[in-house]
């Protein structure tokens, strides 16, 4: 296995150009997968020194480097994302090392970051040799463990526009140390948007009117959640059952702040 640790994004995209190298971000998922033989790369590209960490303000929004850790996010004021980062399990060791870009790229349905990014209307910045593009988070998350990223691309940053809407975040799990079973990220402004994570293979967006949200929520979730996600944490029918409840809690939480 070939190992490289480029000093900038150009070095990363050059190393990825052949399309057979695996990216290592914080390594918290991919390194154990290599240890257990589930991933067998011929080459890895370590992002540790590529200058992709950190949170900056840009005009009317945030630019969050792909290598920004949960610990850094938890200390920030980025709505929803800071709250979700504080609730990541695995201990400070995982929050110190796990990155927002790694979680997004991994795209495990039972995780916190994807639904939060969709709720925020985030955009994903991808770079490849000789080019760059931006993909809305809602399109980036293509399915379970699947994203719009091509093998020769690296996620460099995530941009999050400012919002005046009030945030609410609820994560449901049955054991303290568990990954989330269902999450709901709500933003309550003139209208209400609540995005479910863990409920289906990719985040599910529910749009509601302020006046009628309580009456409409359950039927909207039932209508949109046709194929609930099923994994070792919980069966699909269970997730379908709790999803509207978790969504309602997140919206109620957001409205209290409004």
């Amino acid at each position, binding site marked *: 296995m070939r190992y490289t640790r480029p000093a900038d994004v150009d070095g990363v995209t050059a190393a990825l150009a052949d399309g057979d190298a695996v990216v290592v971000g914080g*390594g918290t*998922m991919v390194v154990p997968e290599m*240890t*257990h033989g589930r991933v067998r790369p011929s080459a890895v590209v370590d992002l540790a020194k590529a200058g992709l960490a950190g949170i900056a303000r840009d005009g009317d929004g945030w630019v969050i480097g792909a290598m920004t850790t949960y610990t850094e996010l938890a200390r920030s004021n980025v709505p929803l994302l800071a709250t979700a980062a504080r609730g990541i399990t695995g201990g400070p060791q995982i929050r*110190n090392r796990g990155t927002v870009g790694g979680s997004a790229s991994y795209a495990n349905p039972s995780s916190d970051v994807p639904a939060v990014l969709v709720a925020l209307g985030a955009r994903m910045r991808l770079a490849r040799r000789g080019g760059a593009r931006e993909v809305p988070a809602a399109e980036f998350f293509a399915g379970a463990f699947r994203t719009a990223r091509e093998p020769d691309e690296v996620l460099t940053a995530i941009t999050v526009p400012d919002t005046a809407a009030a945030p609410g975040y609820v994560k449901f799990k049955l054991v303290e140390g568990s990954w989330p079973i269902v999450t709901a990220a709500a933003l309550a402004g003139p209208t209400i948007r609540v995005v479910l994570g863990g409920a289906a293979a990719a985040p599910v967006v529910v749009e509601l009117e302020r006046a009628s949200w309580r009456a409409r929520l359950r039927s909207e979730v039932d209508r949109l959640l046709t194929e609930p996600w099923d994994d070792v944490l919980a069966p699909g029918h269970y997730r379908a059952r709790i999803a509207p409840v978790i969504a309602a809690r997140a919206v109620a939480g957001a409205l209290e702040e409004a």
Partner: protein
Amino acid sequence: MKLTVNGVEHEIDVDPRTLLVHAIREQVGLTGTHVGCLTGDCGACTVVVDGQTTKSCSVLALSAEGSAVETIESLADGDDLHPVQQAFWDEFGFQCGFCLPGMLLTAKELVESTPDPTDDDILRAIDGNLCRCTGYNTIVAAVRKAARS
């Protein structure tokens, strides 16, 4: 590669797939850092990399080149225990000792960053360190005591 552990630079030969925990134990020869699950769950392999606790089973050794790594061996000064170690000793904060290196480094990070931690702070901090002996009560008591000393 060059690996700096507890302030000493070591020149070691590693396969690119070698994990930091294996480099520390087998190449550097410091066996206080334990190998537990190799999935990032148990916390027995916790070390400090550039000032932050990290699970060394989830880091490639090559990734730590140029970083300052601290292990459990850096805590005691000869026979003088570090205050966090003394608190675990006084409160019976361990039985078999397998999780202890990770518990101690995690506890040290907490008490250094949070002067007066609540029990909730303590439970949250050791969220990524599994102990199968104590039931955690004596560990929480030890961390509380360590924070006071």
